[in-house]
């Protein structure tokens, strides 16, 4: 048995410093290897972390990519307003493409008007990739979110139909990422793959990042539907109000916050009194349910619903 005699030269990086450094490295690899990348930015906590990382990676220069949001039309007003404000503060270009435009074009056909639009983002995303000729989309997905994502690469190859083939992924060794693609194909790059929900909140706390108000505990009218807390009568940016309560449902005014933010029709809040980031960090440390466990209605249709959506081009 041999033991190492070498003394450590200095203190190892803290885990947040390490994760930050890795993410900056990945962002710079995208910039170095891809000719026309884009950063998918929803206004949510993960993409806000990536914006901060992009500042650390590329300032004092401009970002070597625009920001793009695929808007389902059913997003919380607070998040959309925040998205626009943040892009303006950064002075970076924001592209918005909407699922509603795809519906008008007839490329997205809803089964019923109140069907969740999350999965239809894939169609609009692929249309936008083609329109702008993007060869890489940077996203905020994390491997801890979902079991299919545990196997996803940091530079994840998609064919010309936007499809992910989990059985045929590029091997990824060391930090030697391969973001090459042929015309029409696409790389999805995930700089915060190795982060967990906890890391994201700790980073938000450390970097003092601002967030849309709905991440913090607030009073909201909700109903209980299928075991989930469903927000009702939600105002949109266009003045429309969606999600009326169904007949017989009791409307409750509850103190809630969102752990994950997506399309209104499929994102449920949790009961919480955490009204600042450090309280959220503590709550994240003590929760017994996963981030998507009680909060994403679209993840629960089957054991493999996320995998299925990713195969179809979802990020």
């Amino acid at each position, binding site marked *: 048995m041999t033991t190492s005699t070498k003394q450590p030269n200095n203190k190892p990086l803290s885990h947040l410093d*390490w994760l*930050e450094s890795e993410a900056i490295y990945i962002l710079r690899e995208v910039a*170095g290897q891809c000719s026309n990348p884009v950063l998918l930015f929803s206004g949510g906590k993960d993409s806000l972390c990536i914006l901060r990382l992009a500042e650390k990676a590329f300032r004092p220069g401009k970002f070597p990519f625009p920001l793009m949001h695929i808007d389902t039309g059913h997003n919380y007003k607070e998040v959309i307003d925040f998205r626009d404000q943040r892009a303006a503060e950064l002075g970076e270009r924001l592209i918005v493409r909407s699922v509603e435009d795809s519906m008008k074009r007839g490329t997205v056909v809803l089964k019923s008007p109140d069907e969740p639009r999350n999965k239809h983002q894939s169609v609009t995303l692929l249309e936008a990739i083609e329109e702008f000729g993007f060869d890489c989309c940077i996203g905020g997905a994390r491997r801890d979110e979902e079991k299919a994502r545990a196997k996803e690469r940091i530079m994840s190859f998609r064919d010309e139909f936007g499809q992910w083939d989990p059985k045929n992924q590029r091997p990824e060794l060391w930090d*030697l990422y391969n973001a090459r693609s042929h015309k029409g194909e696409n790389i999805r790059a995930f700089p915060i793959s190795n982060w967990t929900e906890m890391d994201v909140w700790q980073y938000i706390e450390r970097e003092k990042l601002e967030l849309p108000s709905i991440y913090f505990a607030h009073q909201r009218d909700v109903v209980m539907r299928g075991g989930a807390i469903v927000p009702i009568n939600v105002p949109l940016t266009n003045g429309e109000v969606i999600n009326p309560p169904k007949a017989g449902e009791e409307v409750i005014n509850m103190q809630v916050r969102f752990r994950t933010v997506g399309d209104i029709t499929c994102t449920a809040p949790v009961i919480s009194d955490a009204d600042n980031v450090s309280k959220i*960090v503590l709550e994240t440390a003590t929760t017994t349910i996963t981030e998507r466990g009680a909060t994403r209605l679209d993840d629960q249709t089957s054991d493999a619903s996320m995998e299925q959506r990713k195969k179809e081009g979802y990020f």
Partner: protein
Amino acid sequence: MTSTHTNQNTNHNDSLLRFMTCGSVDDGKSTLIGRLLFDTKTILADTLSQIERTSQKRGMEAVDLSLLTDGLQAEREQGITIDVAYRYFSTGTRKYIIADAPGHEQYTRNMVTAASTANLAIILIDARKGVLTQTRRHTYLAHLVGIPHIVVAVNKMDLVNYDQAIYDKICADYLDFANEIGLAQSKTAAGNDISFIPMSALNGDMLVDRLDNMPWYTGQTMLEKLEAAPTAHSEHAEAFRFPVQFVCRPHASDDHELHDFRGFMGRIESGEIAVGDAVTVLPNGYTSKVKAIQLGEEKLQSATTEQSVTLLLEDEIDTSRGDMIVKSSDVKEPVKQIEAFVCWLSETPMSPARTYVVRHTTRESKAKIGTISYKVDVNTLEQQAATDLKMNDIARISFKLAQPLMVDSYADNRSTGAFIIIDESSNNTVGAGMII
């Protein structure tokens, strides 16, 4: 949300360790990972109830912990593991990333992939079976990929009555083998050590809890071992290596002060750098001094391994992505010929007639295959003559390069000693190389 326990630490100053687990399904690898996640309270209630439902659907009586690590539809349907998966957990002092490599099918390729980022490997041995061919294979591969810390977990001690004599015999056998392949003696830049833990992943002996079944073992439990293992950063090689990833030139900016800004962005792969240090840019050999180091808007006096920073130099020198900044006191000649161990990753065999692309740090070069010295049979470790490589093959090969590369030997530096091989027709990553 009610708080009954804390499942993750809220400490901000903890370090990070990447490790891998090797062993075939029957060795209890899934149970080991499942228990680490379970006992560190990483598995949350809804995940558990989900795998309970799936276990029931499959007609199983007990909860199948391997469902935690088999994420894909095809894996769950067929009950097999297809690819490397990454899992996360944390304790009071550390965050962990587990590279979970499947035990069977495509084992070499998957093991090499998982091992490439790991600083510690847990090699499982079934106490009833002792050191097997696959133990040798896993050990050889872990050694080849330069994992400095090996923890041999002698599992299923409950099935041999927690007998110390059996454990001691397995340790002795393993060390004999380690000596045979030069593992026990080898000293890489990062140091090297082998340790042993008797355990029962099923019952939880010596994983997170000690339990009372093996009073004769006084060494560390698995979790204590993981908590104490040095991270890659704390034992890095000395030489300063800074591959340039991206050059920041905001000259078109409205801010006139930025017109002359020229920042070389990248990550320090090894060593340290301080303001005022004399540096040389390779391969062109230009020299200058470090004027400033930045991390985001923060100005640093010095920076160290694994930090992604921006370097500003005193002189305006022509430097671009793919160049390597080193200290002028420690310049190495770039080379156009390399000798390496290669693991072939692709279903399409390597053709010695073709030209491939080699990606080494941030630089790419066309490469022609020179001589294939021999292929290694990973089961017997015999060297065989070879003319081509098939998936999972490992061989010693020389390459002729179109571009000069600034390389170190893999034993000295896992970052500047490694490369991948890309097939330009498919853009696939088809090979992994470790420079000798």
